[in-house]
């Protein structure tokens, strides 16, 4: 369980995290979503006490991280930036971490096997590929068999097999009753993995919703209809809980009616339909709309489009 209360972090005059309030609950995967620079990594660093909040506080299992007797057994974290000495082997890295908290050699071997680094455990971490580095980061996070696992963009740079592996691992950890908190830029990835979403932009909380609810609200399913007689069809379809709009000549976008209903009504009225197709807004689209105002580093072309629009 992670609880943030009025959590704020400023670097100079730059506010990276602003008055964040959220609770990450056990037993589910909670996705932490936001565009670049939204403050995800900063929040995670504050959770494990690497950065001190400017104001507010964040606790894990009821206490500030550093006040725990055995922090590694409470929270296992993998941060975005590499946190491993490149000159040391994976095994020795884990042994050094484990020694601080009296975690035994057997557990080190266990997590090495768990993440599939058995073959390369005695190689210097500097020679690891991105994926192997991520696996070692996850091994470090699981070292203390913690009830709370926090991973900053674990799928970054992974191949499809690695992504699938992480997805299953996260679900399994949550199924064991752990608190799982994972950041990502990718709504589509979180839709597959997470049960709950915390969306931030420019350091502020935008949404704190179950994934299912987000998807339902996001997919304002509409139907695209093309017809030679748009004005008659529009009059026919418009009604309570139905909205019809038109962006192009001869095309209507209808929300609130299914393709079947539209087709049957048009047939009954003798209106020809040239196209009748459901349009589902993608999750990524919905996410981008949600955070549009909060995007820190937009590309030149997308800001131009916005000016033009």
């Amino acid at each position, binding site marked *: 369980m992670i609880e943030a209360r009025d959590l704020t972090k400023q670097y100079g005059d730059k506010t990276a995290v602003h008055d964040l309030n959220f609770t990450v609950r056990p037993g589910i995967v909670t996705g932490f979503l936001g565009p670049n620079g939204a403050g995800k990594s900063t929040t995670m660093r504050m959770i494990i006490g690497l950065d001190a909040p400017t104001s507010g506080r964040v606790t894990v299992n009821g206490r500030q991280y550093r006040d725990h007797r055995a922090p590694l057994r409470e929270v296992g974290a993998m941060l975005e930036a590499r*946190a491993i000495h490149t000159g040391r082997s994976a095994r020795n890295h884990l*042994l*050094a971490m484990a020694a601080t908290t*009296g975690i035994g050699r057997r557990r080190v071997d266990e997590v090495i096997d768990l993440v599939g680094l058995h073959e390369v455990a005695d190689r210097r971490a500097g020679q690891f590929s991105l994926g192997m580095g991520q696996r070692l980061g996850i091994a470090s996070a699981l070292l203390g068999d913690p*009830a709370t696992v926090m991973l900053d963009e674990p799928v970054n740079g992974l191949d499809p097999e690695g992504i699938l592996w992480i997805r299953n691992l996260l679900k399994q950890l949550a199924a064991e*009753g752990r608190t799982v908190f994972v950041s990502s830029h990718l709504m589509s990835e979180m839709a597959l993995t997470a049960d709950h979403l915390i969306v931030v932009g420019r350091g502020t909380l935008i949404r704190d919703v179950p994934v299912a609810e987000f998807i339902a609200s996001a997919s304002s399913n509409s139907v695209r209809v093309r017809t030679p007689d748009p004005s008659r069809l529009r009059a026919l379809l418009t009604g309570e809980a139905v909205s019809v709009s038109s962006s192009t000549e001869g095309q209507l976008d209808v929300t609130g009616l299914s393709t079947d209903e539209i087709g049957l009504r048009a047939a009954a009225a003798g209106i020809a339909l040239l196209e009748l197709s459901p349009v589902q807004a993608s999750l990524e689209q919905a996410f981008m709309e949600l955070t549009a105002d909060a995007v820190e580093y937009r590309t030149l072309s997308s800001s131009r489009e916005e000016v033009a629009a």
Partner: protein
Amino acid sequence: MSTLANETYEARVVAASEPGVTFSGALSSEWIKFRTLRSSWAVLLAAVVALVAIAGLIGYVTGSKWDGQLDPEDRVASAPLQGLFLAQLLIGVLGVLFVSGEYTTGMIRSTLAAVPRRLPVLWAKGVVYGLVTLSTLIPTTFLAYGVAQLFLSHFGHSTSLSAPTAFRAVLATGIYLALVGLLGSALGWIVRSTPGGISLLVGLLLIVPVLLEVVPGQWAKDISHYLPSAAGASFYSSLQADGALSPGAGLLVLVIWVAVATTVAAFLLKRRDG
């Protein structure tokens, strides 16, 4: 400890029987970190070789010139330990690296996540590095002394450890080097970068003394005795230079340097974002 298949973590409370972070845990972690980097042993070995090889060389040269125009200071027991000028740089740099390496690689984030109270890491690193350097370098200085004796005796000369200042001088050389190592570590914590730490160290040990020498005025000479290198020299030299501190005072001043640098390091470590 092990992951039981149907254990639920939801209500998991870390049992009192499961060990927490202890100072001895931090110590053993730092010892693992030190000994599992190849650079640790390479640099330490270089320092040992420098001390012994240079002692042998000096023993040979002084032995062969003993009856010629040899200055009295070249005849004292500690004279062959000149390798310390190279060794102090190696040991100091290794001290910087032991800390700055964590920052340059990002390892510090793992370290501070494991020990979020932070200061135990600083103390543990100091204890580990101090013990490693003392336990290798004190025997090394005596070995170096012995090797010099071999060469001297080849020419029929010798100095003796039982000479009034000889034993102290040889012992002090090892202690001086260990203290320079700790000074390097403290600088590593303060600047968190390898080039920065090394520059500071070299500046303090080699450049500031030269600068003070060229500055006109007695005050510069007076304070130069309190620099780490000069205070150290008072401590390890058999002969006391003009106006220099006594050996005991030299040691004290050196320890104060290390203590002040370490205190600044501790303050910054506690305060700064990791």
